[in-house]
């Protein structure tokens, strides 16, 4: 909106239609100047982008050195040191993924999440990711039922990220362990991937919010689960950018079924 001094300001407006009210017969408009707030939000996003990028550089050294140490202790057959370094590497990986999520969120907000679409076998991708996630837990059993009979056109790395996110969530929110089933199937031109766990589930009020930024599922026992609450937000953005759908069916206490769809046709 143009200000009387000639400059432009960002405003938020709320209109209340009272045309049917015989006493007022008008529309009430309420404007709020949000220029400073928008500028601060932009500054915050820029800071987040720079900070995440800068954090990745020392992470590169730390990750490199921990792998060198692991190699050294493996050669000298120092089993205790190997075990400790493997734990260190797990935490380095976790921190790296958190930084990547922050970078992804800033890319999404700036509309810069770029896709490199190729044709690939979704079943093979699911098998690979399931094997990776299985290695992170010994109280869960991941099983697959792969019936998708066509390849998909999508950004392979990004879809791998979505599948990894759904599987690691299934593990995280089944703290007592148990089965996790991953299925793929074809419905017309659409390929559907589903991840079913038998963990804590999500209550009705939270179900619509799990794909929001910084959404976190908690239990009444105030048990908290680690994470920034960005994974499903990023997953939704990735799937929607592919013109697919993502959703969840869940019953509190009985587990959740997350699913997403992708087109088998080139788009």
């Amino acid at each position, binding site marked *: 909106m143009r200000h009387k001094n000639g400059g432009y300001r960002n405003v938020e407006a709320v209109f209340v239609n009272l045309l049917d009210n015989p006493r007022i017969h008008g529309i009430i408009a309420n404007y709020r100047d949000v220029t400073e707030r928008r500028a601060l939000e932009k500054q915050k996003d820029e800071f987040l982008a720079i900070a995440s990028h800068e954090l990745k550089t020392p992470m*590169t050294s730390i990750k*490199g*050195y921990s792998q*060198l140490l692991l190699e050294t202790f493996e050669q000298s057959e120092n089993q205790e040191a190997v075990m400790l370094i493997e734990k260190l590497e797990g935490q380095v990986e976790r921190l790296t993924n958190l930084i990547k999520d922050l970078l992804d969120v800033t890319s999404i907000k700036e509309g810069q999440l770029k896709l490199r679409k190729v044709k690939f076998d979704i079943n093979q991708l699911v098998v690979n990711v399931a094997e990776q996630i299985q290695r992170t837990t010994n109280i869960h059993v991941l099983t697959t039922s792969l019936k998708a009979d066509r390849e998909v056109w999508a950004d392979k790395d990004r879809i791998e990220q979505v599948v990894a996110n759904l599987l690691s969530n299934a593990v995280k929110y089944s703290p007592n362990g148990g089965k996790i089933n991953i299925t793929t199937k074809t419905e017309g031109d659409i390929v559907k991937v589903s991840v079913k766990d038998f963990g804590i589930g999500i209550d009705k009020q939270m179900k619509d919010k799990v794909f929001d930024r910084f959404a976190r599922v908690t239990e009444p026992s105030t048990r908290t689960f680690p994470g920034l609450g960005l994974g499903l937000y990023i997953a939704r953005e990735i799937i929607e950018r592919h013109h697919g759908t993502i959703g969840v069916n869940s019953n509190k206490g009985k587990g959740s079924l997350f699913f997403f769809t992708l087109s088998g046709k080139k788009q």
Partner: protein
Amino acid sequence: MKKKILIVEDDTGVLDVLRIILERAGFQVSVLTRGESILQDDFEHPDLILLDKQLSGVDGLDICRHLKTRAATKHIPIIMTSATPDVARLAIEAQADDFIEKPFNNTEVVGRIRHFVK
């Protein structure tokens, strides 16, 4: 005879760890923390260049384009590195032969290099 790898990287933390990784893998390593000498063609030509995108003073992409347009250096394989995954596309457009995202796995770095220099 050991293959020569030139690392162009301005972060000393990353530079040190890369040097150790590559020396352990049996390569002869030389390093540059700035890119100007490459633009002036004042450097010993290696068998492969590991080139960071974000250098102080000059952009790694410009260095890559420069090397790939000169007859004396266009045959040298260049692997670009960056903490920003979107740089992959820009690196390929600048005629880099490969791209590695930071943070990387040590085995991945060595494997990608060996793809070009046996």
